[in-house]
């Protein structure tokens, strides 16, 4: 049943469907990045499944020449959980938006993370509802004027990273669609993680929220405003890596010079560093890269192990006959029947 191991290329992962995003949408970049990544993973097309909810982002599966499922709004993590538990051999990606994944689908997302289902979850965060034409999303900044909030939103936004960490995610990262090399490296790390990998991807919606990430993407400022995390390396940023985050008084971080900066450690069981970094808000730099990556058993794996143990522990044959006849049975003998 399994396909011959021919070397695949990016093209092999391009489906025959017309891509229906607006010209200039950052979704194109993510699609290209993922299609490029696929052959590098060495996983057969037929073993790869993309599952999504509803939204512009969620059209993604149609464009991947793999198995795909365009679900209903917010439910992709749940559909993917069922799929992965039913067949752990598959590599399962979830594509979701900030509305799909954090608004209607928030609960499924945090439960998939706490269960550590082996899914690669990509949250395309454009801080707006694209497909429904421009309402506020749970990541829209407080006070933002949108179609549904003409006087500005009154809801404080989620920080997707702290939310994922608080839910117990074993892999949490952030990247941006306009930095292809960074995005590629983060996606690759997510793919390699065994367990629920959560990646927030900043994605510009040219039609309804253009420029949402300009603050961090313009060439002249981005190095000052973004801190790229590297495991085992000190927390440094700035064009010439001259700035760093250090330990301040009473368990706090402090901006300062690069040397003496705290060394980044993705693998800590303790959440505090990852969370401190995730929660930073301007004027602090925004972190990019992998905040947390720890290895813990996945639910799909645990469930299968349990199954094998149950099989082993079975006394007698696990046949359907035996099952039906288990418990107290009695016989009614022929001849006496009247029915």
């Amino acid at each position, binding site marked *: 049943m399994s396909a011959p191991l021919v070397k695949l290329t990016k093209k092999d992962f391009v489906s025959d469907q017309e891509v229906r995003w607006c010209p200039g949408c950052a979704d194109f970049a993510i699609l290209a990045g993922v299609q490029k990544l696929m052959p590098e993973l060495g996983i*057969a097309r037929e073993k790869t499944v993309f599952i999504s909810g509803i939204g512009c982002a969620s059209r993604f599966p149609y464009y991947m*020449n793999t198995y795909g499922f365009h679900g209903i709004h917010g439910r992709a993590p749940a559909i993917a959980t069922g799929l992965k*538990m*039913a067949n752990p051999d598959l590599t399962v990606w979830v594509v979701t938006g900030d509305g799909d994944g954090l608004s209607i689908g928030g609960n499924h997302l945090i439960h998939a993370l706490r269960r550590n289902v082996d899914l690669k979850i990509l949250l395309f965060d454009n801080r707006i509802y694209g497909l429904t034409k421009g309402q506020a999303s749970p990541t829209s900044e407080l006070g933002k004027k949108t179609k549904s909030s003409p006087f500005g939103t009154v809801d404080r936004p989620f920080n997707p990273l702290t939310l994922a960490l608080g839910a117990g995610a074993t892999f949490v990262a952030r990247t941006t669609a306009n930095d292809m090399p960074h995005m590629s490296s983060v996606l690759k790390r997510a793919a390699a993680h065994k367990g629920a990998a959560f990646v927030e991807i900043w994605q510009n919606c040219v039609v309804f929220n253009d420029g949402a990430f300009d603050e961090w993407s313009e060439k002249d400022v981005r190095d000052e405003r973004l801190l790229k995390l590297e495991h085992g390396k000190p927390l440094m940023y700035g064009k010439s890596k001259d700035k760093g985050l250090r330990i301040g008084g009473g368990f706090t971080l402090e901006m300062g010079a690069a040397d003496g900066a705290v060394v980044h450690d993705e693998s800590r069981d303790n959440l505090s560093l990852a969370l401190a970094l995730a929660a930073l808000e301007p004027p602090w730099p925004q972190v990019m890269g992998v905040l947390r990556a720890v290895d813990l058993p996945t639910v799909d794996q645990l469930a299968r192990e349990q199954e094998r143990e149950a099989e082993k522990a079975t006394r007698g044959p696990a046949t359907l006959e035996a099952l039906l006849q288990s418990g107290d049975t*009695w016989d009614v003998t022929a001849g*006496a029947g009247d029915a």
Partner: protein
Amino acid sequence: MTVSAAPRPHIDLQNAVVRFAGDSGDGMQLTGTEFTREAALYGNDLATFPDYPAEIRAPAGTTAGVSGYQIQFAAHEVYSAGDQPDTLVAMNPAALKVHLPDLKRGGLLILNEATFKQSDLDRAGWKTNPLTDGTLENYQVIKVDFEHLVGKAVEGAGVSAKDASRCKNFYALGLVFWIYSRDIEREEQAIRERFKKSPPLAEANVRAFKAGYNYGETIEALDAPYSIQPARLKPGKYRNVTGNSALALGLIAAAQKAGLRLFYGSYPITPASDILHELSKYRRFQLTTFQAEDEIAAISAAIGASFAGALGITGSSGPGIALKTEAMGLALMTELPLVIINVQRGGPSTGLPTKTEQSDLFQAVYGRNGECPIPVLAARSPADCFETAYEACRIAIDCRTPVIVLSDGSLANGSEPWLLPDVNSLPKIEPDFATDPAGFMPYKRDEKLARPWAIPGTPGLEHRIGGLEKDALTGNISYDAHNHEKMVRTRAEKVRRIADRLDPTEPFFDPEGEVLVIGWGGTYGSITQAVIEARQGGLKVGHVHLRHVFPLPNDLTDVATRYRTVLVPELNMGQLRLHIRGQLGLESVGLNKIQGKPFHVAEIRSTIESLARRKHLPAEQEIA
């Protein structure tokens, strides 16, 4: 099968109805279950009806906390748990208060005398003491000082006073065993097995049980002991099952026969949770149970599992089913096998969570957005849950469609002897996965209008599905007007054709006559018994009990015209009645009860009789 000898001569009965009632903490469900098992093993036919409150344990001694368990067992076939008990065990005044009105005139009443203190009476809402105010004069009353007698019986068994008092229910069970001449040795073994982790507890319960049995001998004023011979059932191997466990077995059987992994995604809810509990035990059968974060996740995961090539199943009760309706539409659009089980309970909203009702038929047939036809099957008895579940899985896999199974609280918890099916003669189920890339089209249909099931992992069949309208062949998104009309009509036709493959409808009892009773679901037993009784009175009555609620059998109207009138008894306001009128133009008279309880046989029988007499037919028949 031997029955331990009793010194007094037995009085032979054809059947008996016994109800055990007490506080939620008194162990009445266990007592009833034990009695039932013994009756089953003895060879009686039987039907049971457990009835318990929505609270785990409401305040002791109040009517809110009363838990009851009724069994009818007989030397002949039995269809319902009985209208009125012959014997009522009431472990406290509250239980007496709730259940006395049902006891048959002249019936046997076993009371826990020590609990009739003033404070107990007050808590149960008795104004005067029923033991002394004449309330009980029409019954054979056996007052037992359980506390005292049980205390004495278990002395020296090595248990605390509290644990000793907890043996009361086995004392009562022993007494009822004596009354109905049951086998105490088998039960003794069963008790020892149950408490095997604590030999003192086992010993204490056995002693209480035997003491109760022996106590029977000492009661002079009693007609008993009675004896009820085994029923002459169809030969074969039997087992007593509740509806929920039969249903779970039916699902496993279908998955095993189809060679598929069973994936059950569910979120706990009364009275459906036991299906999850039951299935969870059978992990050795390539079976994944997934307790989801909510009902939406449960069905979504089941859909994901079906996409993966498993048999995806989800189960809940009314409020949880409501949450699943959006995703049912997705299953319909993606045309994947999926079985959705609804163990109905009293509604609307949270309603009466532990009571039975049949009021989710509309929801099952009509409760979705868009044109969303989903086959609906209903189980009619605890044992029939097996077959219905099996059939639902078969249709789901055959037709690549979601299928709804309706059960209800009384079936779920009720039990009856089940003639074990021959595994080899169960109908075949063939998932028939697509494997050949040549000419593969995700929505190209076979003669049942089913599309291919092409599962991830299969090289060359990579494709994408989803909830947007899809092209009739490729399955790609299509907004084309005529394609949409075609797809809507095709999906409807696929479901409609299921009716073409059904066996012809053959009414039970009279093939023509005065009244045809059309029922569905858990009313089967009461209707059957009522028809039997009405026919004994000389009426010509037929009975059709619909397993297929949607699509309806093609010949139902034809069959109905062979009778002067059609009666539809339902535990709702007339949902099947509206459904058959709307679908088929078939007129009928409704008999409707919405009390969280099954029909009494008498309610249906008298309605049949009065309908047969009437010139002009009413629309709805009031329960007399």
